[in-house]
């Protein structure tokens, strides 16, 4: 019954062309030797060279990576905990509020989140800088992590953990030895998601950063407000390349892991 009609094929082709053409054009024009980004004047990699010599961009890139590593790590720990609470803790006082606070940040407009966090930091007298951006990013990305992890946890076979407890392990050991290895793929993809969300964020970082800490998106935004620039094209191409390589290799790894798991299960059944 499942087959592609010409209509299906057309919508797939047009849909993916729409999703990918703009990025392809961007990548092509990053190798344009002309400063006028709309006129093709021959192949050149000079904008990549210019970018590497641009201290301000390099500094911002460093700050961005620092923030992303720290916030995604905190967010993974907190988000996994939150997911565990959502799926396992059963009923407790204020559960509706808790799940509301997990889901609301996913759709909350960034201007509101950014403004409210800034006013909090000012209110308690925290100096704005790397630390405040990390706190802000941790807060919104932990919600993404907990959604990813909780969907994995809810399909998890509880009896495995109960068996570990019956066999005498402490609850923490059962979590570390049984639950964690099984939910690990979700935890890892949660970390990656938190990492890219942090790399990408302009609005919340603009509100919560101070003059001492400028992230790459803030730098890019102020550059492109004035129009297209070949250096930004080069920077975008590098970022697109990193993401593409990352996502494709991650999916290959998880595919291989799935195949291996299936083989092991089959062997276990046979023996």
């Amino acid at each position, binding site marked *: 019954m*499942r087959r592609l009609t010409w209509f299906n094929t057309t919508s797939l082709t047009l849909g993916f062309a729409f999703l990918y053409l*703009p990025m392809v054009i961007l990548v092509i024009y990053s190798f344009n030797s002309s400063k006028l980004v*709309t006129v093709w004047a021959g192949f050149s990699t000079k904008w990549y060279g210019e970018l590497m010599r641009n201290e301000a961009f390099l500094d911002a890139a460093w700050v961005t990576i620092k923030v992303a590593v720290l916030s995604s790590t905190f967010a993974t720990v907190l988000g996994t905990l939150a997911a565990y609470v959502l799926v396992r803790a059963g009923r407790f006082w204020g559960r509706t509020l808790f799940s509301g606070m997990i889901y609301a940040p996913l759709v909350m*407009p960034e201007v509101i989140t950014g403004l409210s966090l800034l006013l909090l930091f000012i209110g308690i007298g925290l100096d704005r800088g790397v630390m405040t951006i990390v706190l802000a990013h941790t807060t919104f990305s932990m919600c993404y992590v907990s959604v990813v992890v909780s969907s994995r946890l809810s399909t998890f076979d509880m009896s495995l953990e109960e068996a570990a407890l019956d066999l005498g392990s402490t609850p923490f050991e059962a979590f570390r030895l049984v639950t964690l290895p099984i939910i690990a793929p979700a935890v890892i993809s949660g970390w990656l998601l938190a990492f890219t969300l942090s790399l990408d964020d302009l609005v919340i970082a603009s509100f919560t950063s101070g003059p001492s800490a400028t992230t790459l998106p803030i730098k890019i935004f102020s550059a492109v407000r004035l129009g*297209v620039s070949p250096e930004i094209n080069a920077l*975008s191409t590098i970022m697109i390349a990193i993401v593409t390589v990352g996502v494709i290799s991650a999916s290959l790894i998880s595919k291989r892991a799935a195949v291996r798991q299936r083989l092991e299960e089959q062997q276990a059944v046979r023996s």
Partner: protein
Amino acid sequence: MRRFALIAVPYFWLLALFLVPFAIVFKISLSDIALSIPPYLPQLDLAKGWKGFTKFLGALDFENFEFLMMDDLYYKAYLSSLKIAAISTFLTLLIGYPIAYAMTRASEEWRPTLLMLVILPFWTSFLIRVYAWIGILGQEGFLNQTLMFLGLTSEPLIILNTPIAVYIGIVYTYLPFMILPIYSALEKLDDSLLEAAEDLGCSRIKAFWLVTFPLSRGGIIAGCFLVFIPTLGEFVIPSLLGGSNTLMIGKVLWDEFFSNRDWPLASAVAVILLLILIIPIILFQRNEQKQRESEG
């Protein structure tokens, strides 16, 4: 005891960094702009004890909200944001549904690849994806050059810095959010239902409207909320693609805060935006809960 600690850590983190900040926004929306650091009055002076607190409460008022009602800039910005969000959600659904549907029709071994192709742009920087359109939609941009080369227009079309560019930008960046929930709803669909409908004499198109479409409703609703709610407060897309011709409330809030440095007014803008969003956010959450229960 351990259970309490387990719940308390994420709970208090979210209370302190998600809920309390909203209370502060609300408080500051009742304050007045002032030339001080931070730039609003009154400040809560706890050193004066109870008297300081009552004085502080007395100085709060709804002036900012009155101002928002009087000045039609804000009123128009809310309306135009609602309009832009609604139209672009509809456009995203119109474009996203056929793609999601076609993905489920593809053969088993192709589906993971197609799924990855939809997710990949989501991992790429949002800012860069919006920026890519500046080079395409501009007067001397790629689109106009192509159209003029093909002889379809003699003069460049003006698209950048108009609402059309904003619609294109929103549909482009939010399309994966529409495709994914619809895809996962359609994927679960039992094919034998369609076969039954066709055996009972339905045409394919009729079977689609009577069986497939109603059963994918959960996915459609989730997708629409995932597009509509964040779009309503969108800042990056209108400010890069919309120019000064597009009025959206996220941009108004940003300018009020960063350009005019009127923190109390920016907070009042945020409070009203939040009030508008509460209903769709609650509906979204209900829908998610229902989906999860029907799965589990």
